[in-house]
C-alpha cells in the first residue's frame, strides 16, 4: 500500500505513526511545507517566552523518529489533487501516486481587509517563522498592538506580556474571547488583563496600518485614532487549507466534509485535523481546530485507511487558556440550556454549567485547575446526574465531585452492602 499524508502537523504525524503500527510494509509519505522537523503550533507561545527552545516545540523528540519508523518526510506544498489518477501534485511539480490519501493540511491565518498589513512589522503568530519575526520586535518596552482577542490572540497575549512589551489588544466584538467565553467570563478576563497592564480595547476595529517614523508603524483604530507601534500582531482567525482541492469535487464547507470514518469520498481519501469538518459529539459536522481532535482524527483515519472500521463518535469542542496567569477553560455547549453559575469577581473565579435535562452539556471555568478534565468525562459519558443535578444547580463548583460520585458510587455501594 502507498499512503500519502499531506500535512505534517499533529493529525498527520499521529496518522503516519498509526499507519506504520498497522501496516509494517506500507510506503508512507508525510508531506510538510515548513522547514525543519514537524512541530506543534501550540508550543509557539512557549518558544516566544523562552520557556523552551525551538526544538522543544517538536512533535516528537527522539532522534530520527520518522526515519526509524520508515516514514518518508517530503518537503513540499500540495497544489492539485487528481482523484481519477489517484495522484497528488506538489507546487514544485513533484507528483505522488497513492492508494490512500490523508488530507491533514491544517489551516492558515487570515487577515482583515484593511490596508497596510503587508508592511514590515505586521505579523501573524501562526508559524515558527512568524514567531522569529515577532521575537525580533517584541523586546521589553516595545509598543505592540495585538489585533484579535479570540483564543489564539489570547494565547499570544500571554507571551507578549511575559516579554515585557507595552501591549494593546484590539477586539472588534464587545468582549474578549467572544466565542470561548460568555459576557461575564470575557469581562473577568479583560479585567484581569487590564490589572496586568494590558490595554484592552473591545468594540474597536482596526482601520489600517501605515509606515510611521523610522521603523515604527502607525495603527489606526476606530474608535481610538492613530497610535504608534513597533509591532502589530494579527490574530483575527484562521481558515482551512483546502484551496488545492478546488475542482476535486470533494465536499468543501468550513473544511473537507468527512463521514464518521473520517473519509471524504467513501473510498480512499480521508481528512483529519483543522482542515476536516467531521462529526461533532453534539450532532452535525464541525471543524474543531484543537489538538485533541487532531490526534483523534489522525488515529481513526489511519485505522480506516488500513482496512479497519473505526467510527468516530464525534469531537467535543474544548479549550484551555492562560491569560497572564488566569486560567480558563470551556467545554461543549455552554451557551444554551438550563444553567448554574457561581461567580466570585474579587477572587477571579467563575464556573458556569449548562445542562441538557439531567446531563451536563457544557461548561465554562475561570480560576479552576484541579480535576477540570472531569467536566469532559461528565459531558462525554452523558452521565445521568440524578440527585447531583440539584447539588450542582446550588453549587456548580462541585462538578469534579459529581463526576467522582457518579463513577465510583456503584462500587462503593456494592462494597458497603456486602
Amino acid at each position, binding site marked *: 500500500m502507498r499512503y500519502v499524508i499531506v500535512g505534517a502537523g*499533529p493529525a498527520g504525524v*499521529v496518522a503516519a505513526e*498509526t499507519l506504520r*503500527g*498497522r501496516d509494517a510494509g506500507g510506503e508512507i509519505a508525510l508531506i510538510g511545507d515548513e522547514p525543519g522537523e514537524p512541530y*506543534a503550533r*501550540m*508550543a509557539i507561545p*512557549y518558544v516566544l517566552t523562552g*520557556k*523552551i527552545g525551538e526544538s*522543544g*516545540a517538536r*512533535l516528537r*523528540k527522539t532522534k530520527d523518529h520518522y526515519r526509524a519508523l520508515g516514514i518518508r518526510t517530503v518537503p513540499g506544498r500540495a497544489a492539485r489533487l487528481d482523484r481519477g489518477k489517484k495522484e497528488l501534485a506538489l507546487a514544485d511539480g513533484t507528483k505522488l501516486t497513492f492508494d490512500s490519501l490523508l488530507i491533514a493540511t491544517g489551516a492558515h491565518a487570515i487577515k482583515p481587509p484593511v490596508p497596510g498589513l503587508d508592511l514590515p512589522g505586521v505579523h501573524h503568530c501562526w508559524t515558527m517563522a512568524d514567531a522569529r519575526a515577532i521575537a525580533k520586535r517584541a523586546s521589553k518596552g516595545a509598543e505592540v498592538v495585538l489585533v484579535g482577542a479570540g483564543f489564539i490572540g489570547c494565547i499570544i497575549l500571554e507571551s507578549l506580556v511575559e516579554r515585557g512589551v507595552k501591549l494593546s489588544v484590539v477586539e472588534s466584538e464587545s468582549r474578549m474571547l467572544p466565542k470561548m467565553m460568555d459576557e461575564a467570563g470575557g469581562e473577568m478576563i479583560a479585567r484581569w488583563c487590564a490589572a496586568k497592564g494590558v490595554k484592552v480595547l473591545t468594540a474597536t476595529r482596526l482601520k489600517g496600518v501605515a509606515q510611521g517614523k523610522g521603523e515604527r508603524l502607525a495603527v489606526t483604530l476606530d474608535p481610538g485614532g492613530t497610535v504608534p507601534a513597533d509591532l502589530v500582531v494579527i490574530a483575527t482567525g484562521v481558515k482551512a487549507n483546502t484551496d488545492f482541492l478546488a475542482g476535486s469535487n470533494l465536499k468543501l464547507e468550513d473544511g473537507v466534509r468527512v463521514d464518521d470514518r473520517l473519509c471524504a469520498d467513501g473510498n480512499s481519501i480521508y481528512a483529519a485535523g483543522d482542515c476536516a469538518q467531521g462529526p461533532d459529539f453534539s450532532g452535525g459536522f464541525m471543524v474543531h481546530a*484543537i*489538538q*485533541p481532535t487532531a*490526534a*483523534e482524527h489522525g*488515529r*481513526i483515519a*489511519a*485505522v480506516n485507511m488500513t482496512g*479497519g472500521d*473505526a*467510527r*468516530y*463518535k*464525534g*469531537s*467535543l469542542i*474544548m*479549550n*484551555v487558556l*492562560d491569560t497572564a*496567569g488566569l*486560567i480558563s*477553560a470551556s467545554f461543549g455547549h455552554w451557551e444554551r440550556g438550563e444553567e448554574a453559575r457561581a461567580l466570585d469577581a474579587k477572587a477571579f473565579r467563575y464556573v458556569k454549567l449548562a445542562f441538557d435535562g439531567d446531563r451536563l452539556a457544557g461548561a465554562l471555568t475561570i480560576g479552576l*485547575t*484541579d*480535576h*477540570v*478534565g*472531569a*467536566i*469532559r*468525562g461528565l459531558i462525554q*459519558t452523558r452521565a445521568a446526574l440524578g440527585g447531583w443535578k440539584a447539588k450542582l444547580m446550588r453549587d456548580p463548583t462541585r462538578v*469534579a*465531585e459529581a*463526576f*467522582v*460520585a457518579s*463513577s*465510583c458510587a456503584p*462500587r*462503593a455501594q456494592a*462494597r*458497603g452492602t456486602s
Partner: protein
Amino acid sequence: MMMSLHIDPAKCTGCLQCELACSYDNEGVFNPSKSRIKVFNFHDEGRFVPYTCTQCAEAWCLQACPVDAISVDLKTGAKVVSDSLCVGCKVCTIACPFGTVNYNASTGKVLKCDLCGGDPECAKACPTQAITYVDANWTGLERMRTWAAKTDSGPRATH
C-alpha cells in the same frame, strides 16, 4: 507482573495521609493541593473516595500532548510527565476525562500520578489499606476501563 493501585473507598477514613505522602515525596512539601491523589469527601453521605489516575489504556493525556512530554513507563505501565519536556499548555488537563491531570502554577508544569516508579507512597502511607498496590488483575481496573470506554471518542488504534 503488572501492578496497579487498588482503591477501596469503603475502607477510607479520610485521614489524608495519602495526600500528604504524595505531595511530600513528589513535591517536597506537605501540601494536599500538590498531591496527585485526592480524597473526595462526600459529607452528606459520610463517605470518602480516594481518587487518582488509573493509568488507563486510552492514555488521553499522552495522546493529547502536543510535544511528546507524556510517555509510558515500561516497567510500571504508568503514564509519566517529563518535566523537562512539558511546556505547561494544559491541554492534557482538559483532555483527561477522569480529571486526574492538574496544572501546578508554581512550576508551570502539569502533575499526574506516576506510581512513584513502582513503589507508590500513598499506598505505603494508607493506614487502613484503602489504597493498596497489587497485581493489576485484582483491581477494579476493568470496571474503570469500562467507564473509560464510554467516553471513548473512537476506537483506539491497536499496534
